[in-house]
């Protein structure tokens, strides 16, 4: 029983990472109806920025954390301006291919930057290797930090979307771009902001993941597992992304322990196929019908 709880706890932490990346997808999908295949690579860049902040610039960890988020925020906005905006209104497939191209570019360029390169790096964090015991349950500090920061971030985004003018404008844009445009909402600027926020969120995921795994150029591939998370939660639902991430994280951890070798890596994809067959709109997805 204790072992089971232990597994659940590490599954939740892993799920939070998936949830955060999925959250990045969902933010962009809701606002611009683009699926961003470079989300995992944005996460990777975020991880490397944290690395540079702590090691090369000698900033304390939390300062480097915030700095990396800020840099990624502007990076996301610049990306939107340079690549995505010229494609506004183009078919989804075109835009998806553009983001795949950006992912390739990011992965290639990162290996060319000195100090970053193709090696795996360890991100030094102040809470490394600390553990907390809760009634026999051993929780590592790294996992707890992941859970806590995710909760804070979700709360922050919730407040942003519910209670600020800009958040409400974002909601309007995501519901109907044209109508929002008519209402005087600067849709393009909103899209740019959304990309910024989404890049910052995925950088956050990267920085939280870094102490658990390592920082390297291919860590972005974990982003592919966030697709199942987003679909399970219902693409386009913010709480759904988190719940989906948690489900995928827990299922994966349990599958890794109880099922034969090999199932851990594909558990997420089996879950998503089942989900698409049973409930294609996901747990929290909206079911809209087109009226002719």
């Amino acid at each position: 029983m204790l072992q089971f709880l232990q597994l659940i706890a590490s599954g939740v932490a892993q799920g939070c990472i998936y949830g955060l990346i999925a959250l990045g997808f969902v933010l962009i999908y809701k606002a611009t109806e683009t699926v961003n295949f470079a989300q995992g690579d944005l996460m990777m860049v975020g991880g490397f920025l944290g690395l540079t902040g702590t090691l090369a610039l000698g900033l304390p960890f939390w300062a480097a954390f915030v700095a990396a988020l800020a840099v990624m925020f502007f990076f996301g906005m610049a990306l939107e301006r340079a690549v995505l905006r010229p494609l506004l209104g183009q078919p989804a497939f075109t835009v998806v291919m553009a983001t795949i191209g950006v992912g390739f570019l990011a992965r290639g360029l990162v290996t060319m930057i000195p100090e970053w390169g193709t090696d795996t790096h360890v991100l030094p964090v102040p809470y490394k290797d600390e553990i907390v015991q809760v009634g026999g349950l051993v929780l590592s500090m790294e996992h707890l930090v992941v859970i806590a920061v995710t909760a804070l971030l979700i709360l922050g985004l919730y407040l942003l979307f519910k209670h600020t003018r800009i958040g409400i404008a974002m909601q309007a844009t995501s519901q109907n771009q044209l109508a929002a445009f008519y209402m005087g909402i600067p849709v393009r600027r909103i899209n740019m902001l959304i990309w910024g926020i989404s890049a910052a969120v995925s950088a956050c995921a990267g920085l939280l993941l870094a102490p658990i795994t390592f920082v390297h150029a291919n860590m972005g591939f974990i982003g592919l597992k966030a697709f199942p998370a987003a679909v399970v939660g219902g693409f386009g639902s913010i709480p759904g992304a988190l719940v989906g991430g948690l489900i995928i994280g827990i299922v994966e951890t349990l599958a890794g322990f109880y099922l034969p070798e090999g199932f851990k890596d594909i558990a997420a994809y089996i879950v998503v196929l089942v989900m698409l067959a049973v409930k294609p709109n996901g747990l929290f997805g909206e079911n809209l019908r087109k009226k002719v």
Partner: protein
Amino acid sequence: MRFLFKTAYQQDIRLFKHGGQAFWYSALGLALLAAPFVLPDYWVSQLNFIWIYSIVSVGLMILVGFTGQVSIGHAAFLAMGAYTEAYLQGHGWPFALSLTFSALVAGITGVIVGLPALRVKGMYLAIATMAFGFIVEEGIARADSITGGNAGRMLGSLEVFGIPIDSELRMYFLTLIVLALVVLGVMNLLRSPTGRAFVAIRDSEISAQSMGINLARYKTIAFALSAAITGLAGALYAHKLRFLSPDQFTFLQSIELLIILVVGGVGSIYGAIFGAAFWIVVQQLIVLAKDWLPPAIGQQTGLQPTIFGLILVAFVLFEPMGLYGRWLKVRTFFQLFPFYRKGMFRRQKSYMKSERLK
């Protein structure tokens, strides 16, 4: 400038629309027949890759370019074809039979994967195919007894109707013949009611449906055909490489296939072949460039993905119709000379169409 004045229905379904086309295609045909005798062996081998990739891209083009269904798991069908061929050949099946069977196995898998396509679409479908791709990749690595697992599987030497395919030259003609048959078949398919239905579904599902097209049926057919052709290419791929391992059929391979389509030009058979040729040539150029670039750049492991990314982004942004579109523009320029206008092929600005509604 040439005006085609049609006086008979027969003219409409001719393979060559006019004498000029017939001339140039015959010239191309002769050049292709002569090429392997003139070129060094290495480049013949690269041409073989181009033909095989062209077959795959034509298969994927049916699905992505003509039916409008995105698949990010096509490497799985390639793997299905390749491993079926390897397995059957290992059991002594003759090539013609095992090739057909490889296409069949891939096609049937395509139907199974296509089933979610009946319920989900757009990005959901893309993710379903991606999930399928990952599961197949893992399955290949685990099914040691059939696929040789991560250690890989060797193929025996190939014999087609008693002729041993033991040189790149013979492989060249084998792949070229299969490609020619596939292209002719697909061209014929596209002007049949089935092909027209595909294009109608791509352009608007709702209008296709109201014209009496059974969406479920035609989407399944598209998936099956696309997968079967990819499987066919997979079988040839297996013989080309003589060695199969799971890391040849990864997610990245599927993405590369999509990049080939975008670079070549989505929505035309020419595009599929242009894209495949471009892809192989660029890879070779990168290898060549590595030797004379300064080592600081040439020895970078990230060089290849960077160049691929740049090419892809540049094509999406500046030449969305791909190489075929570029060719079309150049041709129109000369045909209409001096009346070509700059904006003739400009993309129409359109409002975002929501996929969230069904």
